[in-house]
């Protein structure tokens, strides 16, 4: 039982990271129908920025987190402007390959600059552990930080999307790009905002994962990127609560599978869940079913 509770705690932390990244995927896909394969690399860059700030400039946790989010959101906007904007009217497959090219460029470009070696994050959080319900299951301070930051960012996102003009514009463009342009919405600006917000969330996830697992490397983004995308699809791509649910669901499932002795198969389980969800409910658990029209 203790073991189980401990795994749930770990799963929620991992799930927070997936959820933060899944939000970026789901927002970008919702607005320009592109699987942004470079999203996992933005998370990696975020982790490196956090590493540089805390190691070389002795930043605290929150300043490093916020600065890293700002820089990754800039990176996201630049990627959108340079790479995705010219592809907006081309075929899906060309856009997808462009996204993969951007992802490779960031991975190996980063590898060129920071060398492929694994680096370890400094310990910037106080070392506090709380045991749960008098059992041996412990909640580390890092678990609490991750969950708190995730929840705060999600509430912020909810606010931005539902209460601000930018958020309204984002929802309008996601619903119907052409019609929203006719209504006077600046589509380019809205897409840039979407990328900025999504990338900032990925950057935050990067810093959090660095603090949680302590190690980072230039290829760290590829697998979590795919997992976060799976999370977004499970929840129903384009649906924000769905992405959050998918992220937590995937994180908890994965840690439980590892705990049951299937750690070697945990990635396969993620993909199996994905395929199962796609077959049973192709639009995701929270997605609405749209009939295809002629």
């Amino acid at each position, binding site marked *: 039982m203790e073991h189980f509770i401990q795994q749930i705690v770990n799963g929620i932390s991992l799930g927070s990271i997936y959820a933060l990244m899944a939000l970026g995927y789901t927002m970008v896909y919702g607005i320009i129908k592109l699987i942004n394969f470079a999203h996992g690399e933005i998370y990696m860059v975020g982790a490196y920025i956090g590493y540089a700030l805390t190691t070389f400039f002795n930043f605290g946790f929150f300043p490093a987190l916020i600065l890293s989010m700002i820089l990754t959101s800039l990176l996201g906007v630049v990627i959108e402007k340079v790479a995705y904007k010219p592809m907006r009217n081309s075929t899906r*497959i060309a856009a*997808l*390959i*462009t996204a993969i090219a*951007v992802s*490779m460029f960031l991975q190996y470009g980063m*590898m060129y600059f920071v060398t492929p070696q694994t680096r370890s994050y400094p310990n910037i959080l106080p070392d506090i552990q709380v045991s749960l319900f008098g059992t041996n299951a412990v909640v580390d301070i890092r678990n609490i930080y991750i969950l708190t930051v995730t929840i705060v960012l999600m509430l912020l996102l909810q606010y931005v999307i539902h209460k601000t003009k930018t958020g309204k514009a984002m929802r309008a463009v996601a619903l119907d790009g052409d019609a929203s342009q006719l209504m006077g919405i600046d589509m380019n600006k809205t897409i840039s905002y979407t990328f900025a917000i999504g990338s900032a969330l990925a950057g935050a996830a990067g810093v959090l994962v660095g603090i949680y697992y302590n190690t980072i490397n230039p290829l760290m983004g590829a697998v979590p990127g*795919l997992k976060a995308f799976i999370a977004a699809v499970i929840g129903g791509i384009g649906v924000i609560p769905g992405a959050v649910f998918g992220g937590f669901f995937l994180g908890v499932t994965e840690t439980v599978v590892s705990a049951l002795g299937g750690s*070697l198969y945990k990635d396969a389980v993620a993909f199996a869940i994905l395929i199962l969800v*796609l077959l049973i409910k192709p639009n995701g658990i929270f997605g609405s079913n749209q009939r295809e029209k002629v």
Partner: protein
Amino acid sequence: MKILTKKNIYTLVLVLLIYFLVLLLSNVGIIDSYIQLNMVIVGINIILAVSLNLITGFTGQFSLGHAAFMAIGAYASGIMTAKLGQPFIVGVAVAALSASLAGLLIGIPTLRLRGDYLAIATLGFGEIIKIIGLNNDYVGGAIGLNDIPRYTNWTWLYFSVIATIFIISNFVKSYHGRACISIREDEIAAEAMGVNTTYYKILAFVIGAFFAGIAGALYANYFYFIKPDTFGFMKSIDILVIVVFGGMGSITGSIVGAVILSVISSFLQGFPELRMVIYAVILFLIMVYRPQGVMGDKEFKLFNKEGGLSGNVSSK
């Protein structure tokens, strides 16, 4: 239908001429082992690209899991030849059949999905097959399968490539091929016209997987050893890039794409640190400036109607 047309005879002569010419040059020693290695890579890439082109280019089904079929073929042939001591022909046959069986099993559930969802589902299957390979001790797990005898030679390679091109280009021109193309053009309209879309999508998938299996067998029996990581997501992307670069729906395009990208890739071996960065930039530039690929959906013709190289791959 006449088989012995002038065009077909020319093509046959040309095919045999190239075969004997290369055989002669390698026996004399003008084609050294380095060139041979690259020829094998190009040949395997051609088979993979042409077979994926049938799925993605002609039938319009977006597959990101083609390397998985290659993996199944490679492992099937590896087990047959290295572990069970069977001759290569058995290895190739088992590779092709097991890959196409996998294509059938994967295709039946996933081909109900469309567009990006299909892409992600095939990606998922590809990763699952890789993970099974990584955790299966019989095939060596992450270390890979070793001591596979080298049976792949010029004859096997060349005739596999020719067979792939010949069969797929004829398939595409047949009644069934036109049904596949109609699915790409408009699935709903095709269905309304009475095309059994599910059947043809699965058929294209199975045929594509069949040849990918052969490519896997050739790969395994040339490089002595295989490991699951070789056949990951990036390999599927490489194949897809060849197809898109060459032109979706153009078989000669796939051939040209395979040759050019293999050459670029082997040229970039000279810059190990920046190789992937340069490759990414090249990919990006191709997608921006030539998104329809080198050939578009046209076919390359060496001579005009009366015959020639394009005899077996001439345009629609």
